[in-house]
């Protein structure tokens, strides 16, 4: 990814976000009889973001865009992207399942899957860590410290 491509993408994204918030703010009252209304602040913020987005786009379109800047971060390769997606999938699974099957079983499945996806296969490490991060954490936080965590079939 070049600095120019990065900034073109960023500028476009900022304009889209500004359009979303600006459109929403237009539906709110800008000024009331006592002073600024709920649409006042978001409207100005959306305008400012749109200007910043336009400035970012314009800079990216200049002939010497990115010259003298440090090289941008590389996009992940296929293996790196898969590991990132595995991590996201694990957290999404916990968010989806924790109130249905309980925190500990959901976290146990997510931990086992994550460590497998990240290339750690030694069960002498994987199993105790997964149990500690799930049932152990539930025991400490929910049972001993009274932190409310959703419990499932086994009371965990």
């Amino acid at each position, binding site marked *: 990814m070049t600095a120019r491509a990065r900034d073109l993408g960023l500028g476009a994204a900022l304009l889209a976000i500004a359009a979303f918030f600006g459109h929403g703010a237009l539906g709110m009252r800008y000024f009331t009889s006592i002073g*600024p209304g709920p649409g006042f602040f978001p409207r100005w913020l959306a305008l400012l973001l749109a200007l910043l987005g336009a400035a970012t786009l314009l800079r990216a379109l200049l002939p010497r865009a990115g010259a003298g800047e440090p090289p941008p971060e590389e996009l992940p390769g296929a293996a*790196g992207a898969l590991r990132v997606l595995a991590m*996201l999938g694990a957290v999404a699974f916990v*968010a989806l399942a*924790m109130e249905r099957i309980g925190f500990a079983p959901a976290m146990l499945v997510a931990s086992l899957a994550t*460590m497998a996806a990240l290339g750690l296969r030694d069960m002498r490490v994987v199993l105790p860590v997964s149990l500690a991060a799930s049932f152990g954490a539930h025991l400490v936080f929910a049972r001993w410290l009274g932190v409310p*965590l*959703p419990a499932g079939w086994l009371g965990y």
Partner: protein
Amino acid sequence: MDSLWLLAGGFATALQPANLAFAFAGCLMGTLIGVLPGIGPAAGTAMLIPLAGALDPTGAIIMLAAIYYGAMYGGTITSVLANTPGEAASAVTCIDGYAMARTGRAGPALAIAAIGSFVGGIVATIGLVLVALPLTRLALGFGPPEVFALLAVGLAMVTALASRSAIRALVAAVLGMLVAQVGIDPVMGTARFTFGRGELYEGVSIIAVVMGLFGLGEVLSNVERRAAPMSAPAIGSLWLTRRDARDSAGAVARGTFIGFFLGLVPGLGSMVPTFLSYAVEKRLSPTPERFGTGMIQGVAGPETANNAYANAALIPLFTLGIPSSPTIAVLMGAFMVNGLVPGPTLFTEHATFAWAVIASLIVGNAMLLVLNLPLVPLWVSLLRIPYPVLACVVVAFCVIGVYSVNNSAFDVWVMLLFGVVGYAFRKLDLPVAPMVLTLVLAPLMERTLRQSLEMSGGDMSIFLERPLSASLLAAAIGVLVLSALSFLRAVRADSEV
């Protein structure tokens, strides 16, 4: 004298065995968080909020504050031993700290970092004691225009110094303010950008955003790169030579001064004092060309500035209710979880609590000094933990921390979303800290702006008619102009060493 009597009362509470134990546990956990790469102080402090939720408010905040400044010191250990900053403020310590370690002088580097941190922390806390009551009295006289102008100074500092590019910092700051628009409007109570979801009426959970941006976002970056376990060089003797002590004394004094005064500026972030201190030491040295080869001043100055800043940054929080960094924003969230509102009323309505926490800062800094040096071998052994193990543990803590604040799986989804945002910010070279700061400050900024305009019937000149707000706004503009001048550019150049 009032302050000293109140501080004595604070010590009576802070020295109770339970509170000593909380400070001790906080120092240990904070150092652990600082040592482990991939968990910065903001996410680390947020992760441990549920632990604090089980305690009484005084004990909880004492522990979280100890975690905060413990993490600041912990980050030094990996900077010196593994050339990997445990948290951003310690990045500059890598330069001469790691160079010292490679020549067998890791022990003196860690020792001067601990001593400097202690001196900086204690002086900053004494400063807090001295200025707390006068600043609180001053703040109680602030009207909405003055508060708005003060926040504008913070925003200008963030924009000028949080990134190489002022535009990129401003983008992050405006995005944070837009995220803060989600929820009930702070003046009229109208729902904004909530998509009809009740969970969003109170706004987006700050803890979920911090965990996402700093915790999960960092984990995603590390798993993409497949972070490897680190190895560390031998530590050697921890004793400083007479020459080390002589060379470091001035750097410690200057670091204390820089860290303390920059800690008073809302919104600055913890990297600026350390890099500024490094730049000052390099410029004052008769042998600036030897910086980078293991000069003890390059460790003593920044590490002192780091901890002086960390403690002084509590001053705007305690007296004005304004967080100076993302970690302080998390601490502010913890205050609120415990039913305490930081700001000038804290010293009138919860004086015992406020002075106990201030006294505990002194106790905690002393504990850090005594504790950490003997435990360095233990911290080093933790560096060998495989990253997948660390990632699992961090995710488990993040989920528990986020869920426990509102008992809501929805907040875990918010964390996931902001984890992706944090990962994308790193790819797009956008700084994360301004987003968190403005997310926290935007409701107050909007409320004071709207109240000011209500007072003036919509006339913006109200900000210029009141001397204090006019001066603060002039300062904000001055900061933005200064950011274009050579001095700050030089600091930034040094920060890219």
